[in-house]
């Protein structure tokens, strides 16, 4: 009682009086229509300079990216590409046989490339892509609002079903400041309809009704949510090609799979086996969610945009990249151990995942080979049904960890669990196939 009483009287003893000073010069006025990052850069030159450094390409053992020179063509003017993952592991072509991913799939690289890589990927030739892609590959907030005549969601709904070439004309930049920041307060904000709807569905599955990310997220959550607008698994719903995150039953890999099974969703029919399969894509947010860092409140920005000192100030490193290229700022504030040891810890985790991924890939390819052989040998659809279903499950789970870009680091045990489950499905598929054909 005493404590409470005195505390009430002396609120000011905590002395959180900060507001007094102005940390930056407001050189230009920023509005909700200021798209060009160079203009924002007039007010925030350091963040802008760092932001531009996302063009840098440097490898780590499992991440970063390698700059491979290439002769530009009319169809594809890029003079530098990231390494091809298909060449690194040709089994991927078997896994994705019949799907655009089997023609071109590369290591991801810095944000500066997001628009051109998406525009010029050979996947664009392999299959007709919709305007939906731009949700995550361009500075699309202002274009959405314009297209929707002031209504973000309307613009989103309009752009999704457009043919890509047409939608592409509406955007000019890769992600820019306005996509993450409120131009007046510089606070983080959510600008992506896909995420607003996705997180709402997920929260509902956890018993939280009517979740509104704009008003209900804490600042620390926002430091992950801004990234989770794009670094997530997704699919295109219906003929409207509406971007949808499959989270209505939860965000664990198996929960998404159950969701897809229930709505009987299929990305493509596997060319060699005829199985109805699903491609998983970059579920960084979902995997991170199952890990100890997330549990301990460590956000994406804590590791990928850590604070750094520039002159007399600390700022967020807007050179978004692999934390393993920046261990001292990204890890050592929390982990007081030498850099080499931190790198070794991360790589130990990644190597275990890599080993299991390899095992799971062998299992899946063996199942695909068996299915293909059985099919060629005249097995009926009925005989193949069970094994095809196993392929669907094994493939999605393997793809989940394969597409996830941290090689298991974001949640080591969970990644291993998912891969173990994938292996079990693939091998059981082989057994069932043999039994069905006896």
């Amino acid at each position: 009682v005493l404590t409470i009483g005195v505390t009430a009287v002396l609120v000011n003893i905590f002395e959180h009086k900060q507001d007094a000073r102005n940390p930056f010069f407001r050189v230009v006025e920023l509005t909700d229509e200021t798209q060009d990052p160079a203009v924002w850069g007039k007010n925030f030159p350091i963040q802008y300079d760092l932001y531009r450094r996302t063009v840098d390409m440097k490898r780590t053992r499992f991440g970063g990216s390698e700059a491979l020179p290439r002769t530009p063509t009319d169809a594809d003017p890029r003079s530098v590409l990231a390494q091809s993952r298909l060449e690194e592991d040709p089994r991927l072509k078997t896994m994705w046989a019949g799907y655009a991913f089997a023609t071109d799939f590369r290591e991801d690289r810095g944000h500066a490339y997001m628009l051109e890589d998406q525009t010029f990927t050979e996947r664009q030739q392999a299959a007709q892509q919709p305007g939906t892609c731009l949700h995550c590959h361009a500075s699309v907030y202002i274009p959405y609002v314009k297209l929707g005549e002031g209504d973000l969601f309307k613009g989103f709904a309009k752009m999704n079903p457009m043919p890509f070439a047409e939608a592409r004309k509406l955007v000019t930049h890769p992600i820019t400041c306005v996509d993450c920041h409120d131009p007046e307060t510089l606070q983080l904000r959510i600008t992506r309809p896909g995420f607003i709807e996705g997180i709402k569905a997920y929260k509902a599955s956890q018993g939280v009704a009517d979740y509104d990310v704009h008003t209900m997220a804490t600042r620390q959550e926002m430091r992950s949510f801004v990234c989770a607008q794009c670094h997530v698994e997704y699919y295109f719903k219906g003929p409207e090609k509406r971007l949808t995150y499959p989270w209505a039953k939860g965000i664990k890999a198996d929960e998404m799979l159950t969701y897809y099974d229930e709505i009987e969703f299929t990305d493509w029919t596997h060319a060699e086996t005829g199985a109805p399969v699903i491609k998983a894509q970059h579920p960084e947010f979902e995997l991170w969610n199952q890990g100890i860092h997330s549990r301990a409140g460590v956000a994406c920005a804590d590791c990928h945009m850590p604070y750094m000192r520039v002159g007399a100030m600390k700022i967020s490193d807007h050179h978004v990249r692999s934390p393993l290229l920046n261990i001292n700022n990204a890890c050592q504030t929390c982990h007081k151990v030498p850099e080499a040891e931190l790198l070794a810890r991360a790589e130990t985790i990644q190597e275990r995942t890599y080993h299991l991924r390899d095992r799971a890939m062998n299992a899946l390819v063996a199942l695909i080979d068996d299915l293909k052989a059985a099919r060629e040998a005249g097995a009926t659809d009925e005989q193949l049904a069970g094994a095809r279903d196993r392929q669907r499950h094994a493939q999605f789970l393997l793809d989940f960890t394969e597409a996830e870009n941290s090689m298991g680091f974001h949640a080591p045990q969970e990644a291993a669990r998912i891969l173990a489950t994938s292996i079990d499905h693939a091998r059981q598929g082989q057994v069932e196939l043999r039994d069905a054909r006896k």
Partner: protein
Amino acid sequence: MAHVKTAGVILGTLMGLAAGLSIYTFVYARGTSYLTNDPTACANCHVMQGHYDAWSHSSHRAVAVCNDCHAPHTFVGKYVSKGINGFNHSWAFTTGRFHEPIQVTAFNERIIEGACRNCHQDIVQMIDHGPHTSEPLSCIRCHPAVGHMH
């Protein structure tokens, strides 16, 4: 009526005794150490010894004593909080009833957060409030060990 009076006298006597003994306890246990800035004064309590040892190896040993982080930087605030904490800690110490390991209270955590900002205002203004108006970030989430390891 008489009962009430007697009860009052007894109560009064007991309270006097209690107050006397409390003061004696306070003095005997060197409760006054709460009123100085000397970090060895905190270590006067053996349960604070570990923190003292850890502090003397920390990055801040040359720049901040216990009170720089654990007491508000205003005159009134300082002594009021010391009063509260001194009472709480003496009581906890003597009764032996406190959580092991010792945990910082929400009240004192706010004081600490204020202390960081008090010294580091210049450096953190951009990330802390800076252009933002939203809630400040917790410093000790990333820097829990600056004053001392646990």
